[in-house]
Structure formats: C-alpha cells, structure tokens
C-alpha cells in the first residue's frame, strides 16, 4: 500500500513539474516576458533594471531554475495592480472560493443523491421521468444566464436575497468564513445554488445510473432472499455499492467547481480567487495569473490524489489488490 502511495505521490509531483514547464514556456516563449512580467508603464532605465533584477537576461534554462526555486519558496512575483506578493493575494482570496465551491458541492449531494436514488429505484414513475427531464434542463442551462435570472427574481423583483457581495464573516483560525453568520448565508445562498445547479443534475444522473446498475445484480436479490428488510437492502447493499464510485466523481467535481466559480464570482461580485483572476486577465496583471495557475494546479493534483487514495480505502477489491 505504501509503495503504491509513494508512486502516486511521485506521479502527482511530476504533473506539477510539467505544469511549471508549461507555464514557464507560456511566459517565455509566447510573447515577451519582459512585457508580461514587468508591465508596460516603466521607462527604459527602470525596465533595464527590472530585467536585470528578474534575471531575464540569463539563459533560458537558468531562468527556469530560478522560476522553480522561486515558486517552491512561494515567490511568484508581485502583482502589478496591487503591488503585493501575487501568491499571498491568491491565498487570501482562496477561502472565499473554497467556501462557495464546497457549499455548492454539498447542495449538489444533498439534493442530487436522494433524487437520483428515487429515480433509480422507481424509474417508471412519472416523478422520476420528470426528474430526468429536469436534469437535462439542469445541465443545458447556461450557468451565467441562470445567475442573472436568479438575481432578477430573487433580488430585483422579490427583494429576498442580496445580489452581490459576501456579507458578514466570522474569523475562525485566522480565516474569515461567511456561512457562520445569517447575513453571510443570505449572500452565500444564490451564488452557491447557481454553481450547484449543473452539479445537481450531474449527481442526480450519476446516482440514478449507479442505482440502475446495482439493483439488478445478484447480490441484491440474494440480500432479499435472506429476508432482509427493504431498508437494510437499500442502505447496506445498494447505497454502498452506488456511492463508492460516486465519491470519486464528486471529489473530481470539487476541482471543476472551484474552476467554474470564476463565472459565478464574477456575476455575484463574490470576492474570491476566481474574480481576482478574471480581473487580472483583463488588467493584464500577469504575475497574479501565474500564481493562480500554480495554486490551482497544486490544488487539483492534491484533490486527485486524495480522491484516488479514498477510492482505494473504500473499495476493498481495489485496496487488497494493491496490498497483495
């Protein structure tokens, strides 16, 4: 087991290294790195000084080493716009994004799994068919448009929920969280729901497909032949076998949710990392973009790794194969 784990970690690190290479290539091969990293409103002398300082006059491979060294130490350059350390900026905004993403995912699970279970166990019922139709609508809806419609209905017309911003926060362990206050929850509800919409449909469909695949299997019939109550059959047998593959998908979806938060954050003016990078792209604040990319890649790779490990722990068939 440890052998496999080490191998897997090694793999993950390889991906991160590959990413640093891609980002580095992007910086130095496409476009002028001096423009990208230094910014355009310095005069000639300052530019030369900055070039020397950033080591842009050194051979490529040496620059790459410097870049990686810097990255490992957490130095990914300074934001042009904010004149602050780019990495710190991103990390400051990250909890807000994570809060949004995790809330969305939780919504997706709490709504999608029970609905999917129902649709899987009673596929012919009219409610199930309606759910399936709704799910197609769910992932056909363009998320940004739904966001606007939500704002239209709940903020403008009904005035129930605020249209933008994060609301009050409570600082726990040095990080501000908004779900701990009522006002914060008010602000969190719409963006999280908007982000969750697509996921709910996905989770529902996946759960349904999983249930439909598990139900006809022999061991379910055998469980019933043993005289087990329907509840026991459902939970101990059907659910467990359905949820194990689902967990892995959900884990991977967390990464994608964090990414798609960009759109939601933009519309709802949610002060997270996604909004930051959008602004940075538009204002050509390249160091922030670089920092964001690196952070996201590391996050991704970590999530993938954790999901993989989780799957190994949960599914005994896979786990025991790796041990033996």
């Amino acid at each position: 087991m440890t052998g496999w784990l080490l191998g897997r970690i090694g793999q993950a690190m390889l991906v991160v290294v590959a990413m640093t290479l891609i980002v580095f290539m992007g910086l130095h091969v496409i476009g002028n790195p001096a423009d990208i990293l230094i910014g355009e409103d310095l005069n000639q002398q300052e530019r030369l000084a900055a070039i020397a300082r950033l080591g842009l006059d050194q051979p490529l491979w040496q620059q790459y080493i410097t870049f990686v060294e810097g990255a490992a130490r957490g130095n990914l350059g300074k934001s042009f716009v904010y004149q602050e350390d780019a990495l710190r900026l991103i990390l400051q905004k990250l909890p807000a994004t994570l809060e949004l993403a995790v809330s969305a995912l939780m919504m997706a699970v709490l709504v999608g799994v029970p609905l999917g279970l129902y649709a899987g166990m009673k596929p012919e019922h009219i409610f199930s068919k309606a759910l399936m139709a709704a799910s197609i609508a769910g992932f056909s809806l363009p998320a940004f448009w739904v966001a606007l419609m939500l704002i239209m209905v709940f903020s403008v017309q009904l005035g129930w929920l605020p249209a933008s911003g994060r609301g009050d926060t409570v600082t726990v362990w040095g990080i501000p969280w908004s779900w701990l206050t009522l006002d914060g929850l008010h602000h969190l509800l719409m963006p999280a729901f908007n982000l969750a919409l697509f996921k709910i449909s996905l989770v529902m469909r996946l759960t349904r497909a999983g249930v439909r695949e598990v139900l006809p299997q022999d061991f379910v019939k055998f469980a019933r032949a043993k005289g087990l109550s329907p509840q026991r059959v459902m939970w101990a047998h059907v659910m467990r076998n359905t949820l194990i593959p689902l967990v892995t998908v959900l884990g991977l979806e967390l990464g994608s949710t964090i990414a798609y938060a960009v759109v939601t954050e933009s519309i709802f003016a949610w002060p997270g990392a996604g909004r930051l990078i959008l602004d940075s792209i538009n204002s050509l604040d390249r160091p922030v973009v670089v920092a964001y990319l690196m952070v996201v890649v590391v996050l991704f790779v970590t999530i993938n790794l954790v999901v993989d490990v989780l799957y190994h722990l949960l599914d005994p068939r896979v786990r025991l194969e790796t041990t033996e």
Partner: protein
Amino acid sequence: MTVFSHEPYLLEVRDLCTGFDTREGELRAVEGVSLTLGRGKVLGIVGESGSGKSVTGFSIMGLIDPPGRITSGQVLFKGLDLTQLPPPALRALRGDRITMIFQDPSGTLNPVLRVDVQMTEAVHAHRKVSKEQARKLASDALSLMGISSPDERLRAYPHQLSGGMRQRVAIAIAMLHGPDLIIADEPTTALDVSIQAQILSEVQKLVHERGTSLIWISHDLSVVAGLADDIAVMYAGRIVEYGPVDDVLDRPQHPYTQGLIGSLPSANRRGQRLRQIPGMAPSFLKMPSGCAFAPRCGRAQATCSEQMPQLAPLCDQPSHSVRCFYPGAAA
C-alpha cells in the same frame, strides 16, 4: 385470503403462472406449473435456459420484480398461500423457513462487504441475538459446511475466496436458521467439476441429517439424477414430464426428456456421436400454437401443432405424468 389446509405436503404449487410485461407484449415465463414436495424430499427441476425453471424458483420465493409478476396460481407452504401474504410476513419466512442459493457465487455476495457482515445480517434479520452470538452462529454454520478456520473466512472479503468457498458460504447462509425448504438455482453450474461433486455430497448429507426439503434447479440431468427423489422436466414454461426420478429417467415418456437423456455423454456410447435435440427452444414472444416442442419433435403429428396437450398421469404409473399426445418409449 389465506387458505389453511392440513395437507401432508410441505410445499404445493398449484397452476402457477408468472409473466413479464415487455415492450413487445406479455412474456409468459411460467405457465400452469404445479408441483408438490414433501418434508425431507428432494425435487429436481430440469430444463434448458429459458425453460422457466429459475423463474419458478423465484416465484416460489416471491422474488419476482416488476415488470414481472405472478399472474395466477397458488404457492402453498405449510398450507399458507405465499402469493397472498403481505410483504412483511413473506420476508419473515424468506431466509428463515425458505432459503435460496443462487447460481453464480461471484455475484451472490456483495463484493464490498465482508463475509461476516453478510452472514450476521442474515442472522439478525430473523433472530434477536447479540452481535457475538450472531458471529458464533455464522462461524458454526461455516464449520458445518466443512470450512476450516471459519473466523479467518469471516473476516475476508468475497473476492478473496475461491468460487467453491463462496458457494459454501452461500449455502451456509441458506442453512443458518435450519430452513424447511431450500431452493437451489443451479448452484454448481459455475464451479469446477470436482468442487461440484464435493458440494453435491455435502448438500446431500445436510439434507439427510436435517430433513430439509430441497428443490434443485439445473439444466444438467446427471447432477439431478443422483440427488432427487422426484423430477420435473420443464420446457418453454411448462412441465412436460413429472414423476419419481427412477421412473422418469428409466422410462421417459416425453420426447424432450428422451432427447435430454439421449444427449448425455455416457460411457456406453463411447466413440459414437453425441446426440442433440435438433432446433432451438422457442422465443417466449413467438410461441408456436399447440405443443411448444412440436417443431423439434421426431414424432409430432398434426394435432400437436393445433392443441396444447395437458399434463396427464400415465395409466400404469399414476405418480408419473406426461404432457404429450403421443407419449411412449423412444422410437
């Protein structure tokens, strides 16, 4: 409405019909099947795939799921009509008084749960005992099946056990509460021949020691021959021949039964070609009118394609019935 009667039979199936609603119409998997089974007796149900034998077994257990259902008939177990029982009562009987063993042991046990969980849940479903007691019962049941170091096996996951071992576990589960009736649906088909023989003898021993009644469903006549007291041969959803095993196998009357016996590889005919019944079993959706076997029958006449023969006892052997217009010894 339950009908209580004081019949001597443990199980009596009367005119059972089970159908499935499909897009192309109703698929009648079991048509008018009647059987009786006494205590401590073994009944073999033989037929090819699609003959309805497994569906009969599931119908008795009440495990037919939509889109299928028992359309008519009665299943009397100790006088109680199972088809009329409310689900909780049926569940109480299932796994306790009537149990089932399935064909493929790799699919029967849930791959993500340990063996002990799958056994103790079967105990807890019918008895209020402590966890330790349940585990002990499970362990004893495994030992009974001749499994050494049962505690190790209990802690294992199904895929860590061999096919034969898994089937033994399944049988142990079936025997847990000392049932009155076990329905075994081709339990040895998926196993090696040597393991097959082992399991057969173990089951036989159990049956004799405990007086458990057994229904053994199989497509393999030779397996059933040594084990059963009575045998029912099924074809296209109906019983075509029924009676004590020696009578049916020594003096088969129905051409299908004769074909089955004739196609068995046997030492006596070494060097000769294996005889096969020509043609294929009909699709349930395209049943021929009249006798279902007529298209493949060597002695079919005009009447055979027009009317369905009834299952009737032979004059000289009333316990032996045949569904044929022209029963008789093989030509």
